[in-house]
Structure formats: C-alpha cells, structure tokens
C-alpha cells in the first residue's frame, strides 16, 4: 500500500489557502480534506456555520491570516479563535454551537495556510473526547509534524511554498 497526501491550492488570492488530498494506494480521494469539511457541514444542515466559514475564508484570502485569528491546537491551528465573539458581529444568529466548530489548518506564515478537515465538536470536553472531530485533529497534527520536519530538513522551501507545494508528498 502506497498511501500519501499531496497539497493543492484551494483559494489563490493575496493569501494562498492550500488543502490536502489523500492518495490511498496511489488512488486519489475524490474530495480534498477541506471539501470534506464543508460537505460535513452541509450534511448536518449547518447553513450559518457553512456561510460564516465560507465568508471567513473569502475575506481572509484578501488580507492575511495572523496568528491572533486562529486557535492553537497542538502542532497546528484551527478556525475559529473565539466562536463566542461571533455573537458580537452576528447578535441575532443562533450561534450556540459555533464555538465548537473546528477547521484545522497549518499556518506557514500570514500568507500561506494549509487547510485540512474538521467538524463540530460534540462535547464541551477536550477534542480527544469527540469521536467526530478527533480523527481530523490527529490527521491535521500528523500533516503538521511532517511539514515541520520537511521544512526544518530543508526539503521544503517555506519562502517559496507556492512554487514547490505540488512536489510535496507526505506519507500517511
């Protein structure tokens, strides 16, 4: 079995959002990890969450993704940093569970961000107690570790990530 993950461009603007596609035995997964995240929200009928995440990515792609804008999740980060703060800008929306939405990402810098999968945490406890989101947390951290390693080895030139991302193959 030859299983690996490759990176693809998801949104190409001032910020480049990449995403990850799994290859199982050299066969590409029909959906990228981020597509799967949005598919999950749709399946759950989570329209406001889906709209907010789409609007967030669209807006951030025009500016930059600063570290204050993400939530620290072990080796990787996640959107959104303060789900409860969304109440301030969307006071009339029912956002009771919005602070439980996680979209995992690996931030190389303010302008290169690798988006992965995520979901809606079904518990108030740590993510390890949520069977829906925890596998994505583990996978995102695995990808994060592999990217960290390749960058520190010099196998990946982080300053020219846009030009070399297609050559990156991460064993999974």
């Amino acid at each position, binding site marked *: 079995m030859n299983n690996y993950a490759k990176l693809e461009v998801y949104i190409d603007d001032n910020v480049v959002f990449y995403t990850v596609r799994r290859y199982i035995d050299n066969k590409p997964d029909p959906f990228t990890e981020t597509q799967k995240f949005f598919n999950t929200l749709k399946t759950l009928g989570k329209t*406001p969450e889906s*709209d*907010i995440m789409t*609007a*967030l990515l*669209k*807006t*951030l792609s025009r*500016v*930059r993704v*600063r570290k*204050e*804008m993400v939530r620290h999740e072990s080796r990787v980060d996640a959107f*959104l*940093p*303060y789900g409860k*703060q*969304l109440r*301030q*800008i*969307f*006071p*009339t*929306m029912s956002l009771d569970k919005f602070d439980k939405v996680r979209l995992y990402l690996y931030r190389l810098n303010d302008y290169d961000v690798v988006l992965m999968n995520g979901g809606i945490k079904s518990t108030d406890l740590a993510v390890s107690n949520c069977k829906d989101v925890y596998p994505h947390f583990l996978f995102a951290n695995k990808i994060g570790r592999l990217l960290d390693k390749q960058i520190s080895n010099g196998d990946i030139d982080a300053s020219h990530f846009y030009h070399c991302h297609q050559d990156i193959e991460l064993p999974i």
Partner: protein
Amino acid sequence: MKQNKAIFKTQIPEVTQYEIERRMEKSILLAEKIKTIMDARQIKNVDLAGKLGIQPSTISKWLTGFHNFTWSTILRIEHVLEEEIVSLNNFNEAFSIEVKIDTTVNCCMPVGSQIHNKVALHELNSKTLFFANISLNEEDEEMSQIKNYG
C-alpha cells in the same frame, strides 16, 4: 415576559449570506487596518492598551477581527493613533457618478439655483436613473434654463 421574548426571537429575520459576508468582511478589514497602522508606527498591543487605559488582552481580542467596534471605541483609537480608521471624506464622490447625457431622449433638468457642482437626477423615459456631474459657469447658464430638454 418570557413568552414575549420568545415571540420577539421568532420575529427576528434570518441573516442572509450577503449580510454574513459583509459583516465578516467589515469586521476583519477594520481590525486589519488598525493592525496595519500599528505595525507601520511600530506600536505594540501593550503601548496601545496603555494609551487607551485598557488591558493588552482587549487589544488582542480586537485584532482577531471578530469584534463589534462601537463608534466611541473607533474614535478613541483614531485619537490615539492620530489617523482616521473609518473615513467618510469621499462622501460626495460616492454620490456622484460621471455619466453621458443622452440628448436624444427626453430628460428633466433642474434649473438655475438648483444646479450646483454635483447635480442631478435625470429620470429618462427608459426609467433609468442618471447622475450627472455639472459645473455651472456662464456658458451653462443658457442650458440651465431648459426645463424639458430634448
């Protein structure tokens, strides 16, 4: 009372996707503008917090891009940073669009004193609303007397 609140909640209209996008955009861009000014002037969160008399953590929350700023807060920040964050200076330009006046169709022109620098609503028979940018000078005087042009 609780029942009234429940009724009130059900009457709140759904937030449209357009509204979500605009709110998200304005909120993030406002935070980004503040951060850009701070970076350009090498002002740290602690410095800004000190000048505003608030906790540095509050500045961090503002800069996440998910804060609903009040005008009062914006004005205080503008005062401390000595730079306008939200500008309405181009207010006049926003309401005047240069346009070609089609003389082959009937249009109503305001007369005399009604014409200033920025005029004028010309509702043509196509029901399209036109805005014209007209300056009054001596040559325009004659034109300004024409009520029904065309």
